[in-house]
């Protein structure tokens, strides 16, 4: 346990001193502020553009914004935050392979699964902290300006999105156990997400695709019930556990 704690502490120290935590938290904080800000500014922006729009034959009628507008923005901006997170964290293993620091660690007798679990725990806490920070900021502003109760199934929709982010985090772990470079890890994660997205295009398997969890808007508008996402939640949860478990023997067999 002591070796796991020491390695986890090292990961946090690295994330703090390299500025990664600051960048990730700032971006998610900014996204959290942007969601209600864009909603609040929408009428003003449309009014400012009304003249040019009318010249193009479009008429701008009175625009009403509420918490829904802000939550729609939340689900539009969440992928941006996730992409930044994946880009920053994709090198969490590969930098150690490239620089040779992993060899120094493994020759100290630490069991390899502890390295996997320490890095997984740090990424999980970081993703969760950043994501829920963004949610809390949006929720707080929405409560101040409007009424959050207009959004249906809000909590399931944001939890589902968080779970999709967890899957991407575990994909980083999995591809880091088998790939050598950061680009390969990014391609692996990207290809997996693309595969999940393609699954949603087929009616028969759509409900099982983890990519369905990104469609929070259908839930908050009431177009879908939270229960409709349960198969996708189950598949995603199983994938998170299975990929984490698979990463351990793969990393054990890896020649560092």
């Amino acid at each position: 346990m002591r070796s796991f704690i020491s390695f986890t502490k090292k990961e946090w120290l690295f994330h703090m001193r390299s500025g990664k935590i600051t960048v990730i938290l700032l971006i998610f904080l900014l996204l959290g502020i942007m969601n209600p800000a864009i909603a609040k500014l929408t009428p003003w922006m449309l009014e400012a553009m009304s003249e040019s729009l009318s010249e193009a034959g479009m008429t701008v009628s009175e625009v009403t914004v509420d918490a829904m507008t802000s939550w729609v923005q939340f689900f539009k901006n969440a992928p941006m935050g996730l992409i930044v997170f994946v880009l920053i964290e994709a090198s969490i293993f590969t930098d150690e392979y490239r620089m040779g620091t992993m060899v120094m660690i493994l020759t100290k007798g630490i069991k390899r699964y502890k390295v996997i679990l320490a890095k997984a725990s740090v990424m999980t806490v970081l993703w969760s902290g950043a994501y829920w920070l963004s949610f809390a900021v949006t929720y707080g502003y929405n409560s101040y300006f409007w009424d959050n109760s207009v959004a249906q199934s809000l909590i399931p929709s944001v939890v589902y999105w968080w779970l999709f982010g967890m899957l991407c985090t575990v994909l980083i772990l999995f591809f880091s156990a088998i790939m050598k470079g950061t680009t390969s890890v990014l391609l692996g994660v990207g290809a997996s997400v693309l595969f999940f997205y393609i699954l949603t295009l087929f009616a028969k398997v759509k409900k099982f695709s983890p990519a369905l969890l990104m469609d929070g808007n259908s839930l908050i508008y009431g177009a879908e019930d939270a229960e409709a996402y349960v198969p996708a939640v189950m598949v995603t949860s199983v994938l998170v556990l299975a990929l984490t478990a698979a990463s351990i023997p793969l990393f054990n067999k890896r020649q560092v």
Partner: protein
Amino acid sequence: MLVIKGLKKSFGDKDVLRGLDLTVPAGSIFGFIGKNGAGKTTTMKAILGLMKADGGSITVNGEDVVYGQTLTNKYIGYLPDVPEFYGFMTAREYLAFSAGISEMNCDNLSARIEELLTLVGLGEEKHRIKGYSRGMKQRLGIAQALLSEPLLLICDEPTSALDPVGRKEILDILLSLKGKTTVLFSTHILADVERICTDVAFLDGGVITLQGSPAEIKKKYRSDEYCIETECASHMELIAKQFPNVKISGETEATFSLADTELFAVMEFAASNRIPLPKLQRLEPSLESLFLEVKEK
């Protein structure tokens, strides 16, 4: 301390290790010699369980080394040729971290860290590692390798990337471990081995071609050549005239082999002709010349 039997490893079509047998006695400073690409690093990575061997067995302190598991690494301290550390840490933070991940039991870790940093000449260093020179990293590498007081210290070409001053510093530190820690020290710089090693093994063609103490090996391959020096050129001319097989190598210097020239005959001739001989010495082979000789055979 370390026993390797029949170790085999190939990379594609290339057989790097072809049944390597090696025994490193406890307490020795063991020079593991081979040219670049001979398989020294491959052997060391196999000892550390970092590389899967195609065949053979390795035991450290009587326990089998298993690839992918690092249980025997608790006995080992490892210093790679170019040790890499976390640049965002200080030397003290890195050593404390190393103690943590190796679950080292130490009543006074801070004192142990200070002791080691002083030993390697980094006692006053407070900066983060990212600003360290290669020599400083090498010295920190030794400190981290010795932190857990390992039974076996494995150094993979620790001096190859250093300038002469850095080389001397590292060799002095390794020499100071004599009798306390078993050191397996790979290198292609034979002068370093001659300076500090109690035992050596030559790795060539994937097998050990020669093993023993430097003195034993030199004795086994002892040269029958002598070097002779006179005070003036005319004396040397007299000797050369009397002994035609003497090879003149300078105005007052020459060498001869016992195979064709008798030592006592030369000495008697010098005495009877009142020729002073400031130098009459058997030519000891260097490890380098032995290595080349064995390699050619």
